[in-house]
């Protein structure tokens, strides 16, 4: 099985990084408010959640300098198939 086939059956995994972005692993398409897909240049992407990024919707590391803090601990989320599971 190739990696590409593998992606079709594996759920998308979203990891909330402490004090940082949402790390998204899996085949997702991010679209802007206008419905136009935002080109992603890598398989695993980090979505900004501190609001400070200069490259939305992607994380650019700004959370490290603007004091962004998240609740602790947070669940890791798997989505993309019926009955999405929540780990931990």
């Amino acid at each position: 099985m190739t990696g590409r086939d593998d992606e079709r059956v594996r759920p998308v995994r979203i990891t909330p990084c402490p004090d940082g972005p949402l790390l998204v692993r899996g085949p997702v398409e991010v679209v802007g408010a206008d419905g136009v897909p935002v080109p992603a240049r890598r398989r695993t992407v980090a979505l900004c959640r501190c609001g400070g990024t200069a490259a939305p919707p992607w994380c650019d590391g700004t959370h490290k300098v603007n004091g962004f803090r998240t609740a602790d601990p947070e669940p890791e989320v798997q989505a993309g198939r019926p009955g999405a599971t929540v780990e931990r």
Partner: protein
Amino acid sequence: MTVQLSPAHVAGPQSSMPLPTPRGPVGEALLRLLTGAVTDPAALHDAVAATLAAPAGSWLEHDDVQVALTCMYELHYRGLDGVDDDWEWQPDVLAARAALERVVESELRERVTVAVPQETSAAAVAAALFALASSDDGPSMSRWIARRAQREHLAELLVHRSVYQLKEADPHTWAVPRLGGAPKVALVEIQSDEYGAGDPERQHAALFAQAMRGLGLDDTYGRYVDHVPAITLAHPNVMSMFGLHRRLRGAIAGHLAAFEMTSSVPNRLYGNGMRRVGLGADVTEYFDEHVEADAVHEQIAGRDLAGRLVEQDPTLGADVVWGAAACLALDGWWAGHVLGCWEADASSLRLALT
């Protein structure tokens, strides 16, 4: 699916490294041996023994030792122009390298000390590494570049960085077969991105070569080794040492984590400095790419690579944090040299750029 072959230059430099100019007796004896000018290794052993017997300051700033190490390590990468590949595993060269590595590692162990992490969960290790990276008080090259750099400073910056960036990611790749499970998968996930994720033109080394050409520099692999001081060579040399020794697999994992954690914000500043002096996307693409890429990589490297590695084997915790601290220290010492020269209106290079 159609595979389109790219022109050679975008696929990344393929050639071996031009022979560097030795900066002392060790390098001279080494290159005479490697090029076949002599066959007796005694002169190399004598030169190493004599040099190590008379320490003159930091081995990381010792030009002869760092150039010799650069040549020795290069045998494991692309090779040296005109040097037989069989030298890679030649026992006399390996023995000489081991002797030089001992003093380099021992100096680093002495100068870079960090507390052994008490908590060995992946999350705790990642948090400790992020805290280490954010508390780094080394001189800020990126802020200087963003605010003050002129074109000639940017050219010098790329010349220094080219020693490593034209083989970007390669030293950490040595760790792949030395790891298992989650840390191995995390490292490969990062490296895949570094190597273009299936697109030769997106290899970070290829993007760096493009930036060099955009600034009128020669992107030939190893072209500027003679131009840079020992402290510039020391960092890639230490990466190779960490990567090539299974014993130091914790250090190379920690090194990568620190490298990624101090990349996205500085690279945005580098890009801003370059735009400020009117450089175009061909030059800034490499830096802009790293803003997003390393915001992903730092999370994977901190938790899934370094963190899970320590979870698997808590005895590696000390070296993971030490490798990270060594990365920050080497970068700081290098930046101190370069900014010191620039503040004094001097070049930070040994040879003028022509």
